[in-house]
């Protein structure tokens, strides 16, 4: 029951205050480093790779990385909202595949880029809504199971619906331009990533909905007691994650000018990895759009670099796995440091 440092006599308290002050400075530095760590690692990574292979920084290759990473980045932006509320969306990859197939089927009926895009985005959003509603109203203990089930259902449905149960070639020109072409030397998909990220950034940081999302992720029970519509907030994050999968479908279908039930394989793992190695907390309530983007970039850069260096694809998987372990440990370390900070705060004379 006795508070370690808080109850000491005055003279001892003075020295413990000084010690607490030093400790807190170190902890602040540590937390700051953990905060900028992922970005720092990305910068160092780019520097090292650029030194190893001169091809890496060529504009053509950069554009290549961007367009290959765009889909992961867009879907990771949605995934980060779900993880922010202590959830997980395992269905995004299959959802994306199903969305492209539905878009491809619409394209076979009408040659309208607008309608095809709308179909893809809405299909993604609908799957997200099913995830969220089933999770919340089915009173499931965790979204793992329902989104895993939707992964299976969407993949199966995509294979069933796709003509010939395989890749369907062809996309409206406008979609091909969005996914595959460049403006001012910058891949158009970059602008899509930027737009989606900006929109979600504003919603998360400047709107009441965002504040609610952070509070639900921080303390779901307390959020309920504060009168926050927790169920609505949870459902909305899955809907947005689904919509992002739909937007990712537009970009991927555009770049490849095809729809395929095989698209988005393991995309759920890539996006979860991106969010976590970018620095968001798996424990919920901590993270922002920058984490999703930095994480996605890291994955894109590592894949590209190892390709350029001619390293085996298996090693890419091992490398990304190792970075995930480091990121999760960093999260644990951050929690530990915050705990220390609380104790030291109590030791300071107030």
């Amino acid at each position, binding site marked *: 029951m006795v*508070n370690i440092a808080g109850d000491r006599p005055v003279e001892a308290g003075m020295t413990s205050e000084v010690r607490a002050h030093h400790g*807190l400075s170190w902890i602040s530095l540590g937390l700051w480093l953990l905060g900028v760590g992922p970005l720092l690692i990305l910068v160092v990574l780019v520097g090292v790779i650029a030194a190893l292979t001169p091809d890496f920084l060529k504009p053509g290759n950069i554009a290549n990385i961007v367009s290959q990473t765009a889909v992961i980045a867009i879907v990771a932006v949605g995934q980060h909202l779900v993880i922010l509320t202590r959830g997980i969306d395992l269905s995004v990859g299959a959802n994306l595949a199903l969305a492209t197939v539905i878009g491809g089927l619409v394209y076979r009926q009408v040659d309208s880029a607008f309608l095809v895009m709308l179909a893809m985005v809405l299909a993604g959003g609908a799957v997200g809504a099913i995830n969220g509603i089933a999770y919340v109203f089915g009173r499931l203990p965790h979204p793992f199971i329902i989104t895993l089930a939707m992964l299976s259902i969407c993949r199966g449905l995509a294979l069933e619906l796709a003509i010939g149960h395989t890749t369907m070639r062809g996309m409206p020109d406008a979609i091909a331009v969005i996914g595959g072409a460049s403006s001012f030397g910058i891949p158009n998909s970059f602008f899509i990533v930027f737009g989606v990220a900006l929109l979600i950034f504003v919603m998360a940081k400047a*709107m*009441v909905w965002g504040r609610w999302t952070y*509070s639900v992720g921080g303390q779901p029970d307390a*959020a309920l007691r504060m009168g926050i519509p927790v169920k609505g*907030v949870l459902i909305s994050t899955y809907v947005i994650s689904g919509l992002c999968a739909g937007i990712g479908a537009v970009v991927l279908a555009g770049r490849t000018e095809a729809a395929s039930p095989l698209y988005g394989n393991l995309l759920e793992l890539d996006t979860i990895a991106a969010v976590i190695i970018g620095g968001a907390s798996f424990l919920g*309530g901590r993270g922002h759009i920058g984490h999703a983007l930095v994480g996605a970039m890291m994955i894109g850069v590592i894949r590209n670099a190892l390709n350029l260096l001619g390293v085996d694809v298996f090693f890419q998987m091992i490398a990304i796995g190792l970075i995930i372990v480091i990121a999760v440990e960093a999260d644990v370390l951050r929690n530990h440091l915050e705990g220390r900070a*609380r104790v*030291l705060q109590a030791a300071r004379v107030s």
Partner: protein
Amino acid sequence: MTATRSNPVLAIRNAEKQFGAVHALKGVSLEAHRGEVLALLGDNGAGKSTLVKCISGVHGLDAGQIFLEGEKVSLPSPAAARRAGIETVYQDLALFDNLTPAQNFYCGREIAFPSWLPAGLRFLSSRKMDREAAAVLERLKVKLPKLESPVALMSGGQRQAIAVARASVFARKLVILDEPTAALGLRESRKVLDLVAQLRVEGNAVILITHNMEHVLELADRAVVLRQGRKVGELKPDRNNQQQLVSLIVGAES
């Protein structure tokens, strides 16, 4: 210091609450007055938390009535209780670790615009909320290391002080504190107790649950004792009847 006996801000009549086989409240009645600290005492499992959860809208009563300023009310949710002017400081669920003090202050009742949009789609007036929270903390002399860092970095006492300050801003009738100092050291408890005294000065009715007799003697104008879901006593605590109070709590009738 004792308030006028005229009309209580809160009155509970014959509250009954059962959790399956556990009869947690058996016909409890009590009153709380403005400008008065009411200590709610009792051994573990006596029903104190259950009673305050019924007042703050977490549980519904099985039977009995709640009156606020003479009017019978039903409090179907915590949000309804807060709208009615009742603020509760929970021992554990007090704050959101990942939010700053100001964000914690306004969580669930953000100042936002424009008002014609649905609540969730409004834009936060962050600067205004930061400013007002800082002003309140200043007025209550709550010292914090950094207003812009999340409360995860703050000590138990600082966090509890923020929670009490928040309650004091939004309460219009009643503040309930369920063991607010249970996890705190001496010095940090002191700060929170001072804030509780401040709540009374500002004209709130205060219900304080605590196991600490010193705190009761120092702060409480009146004490209600629960035992096994029943109200077994009510008195004005002082040094002379301290022993009687303890007997009431543990049930060793003299």
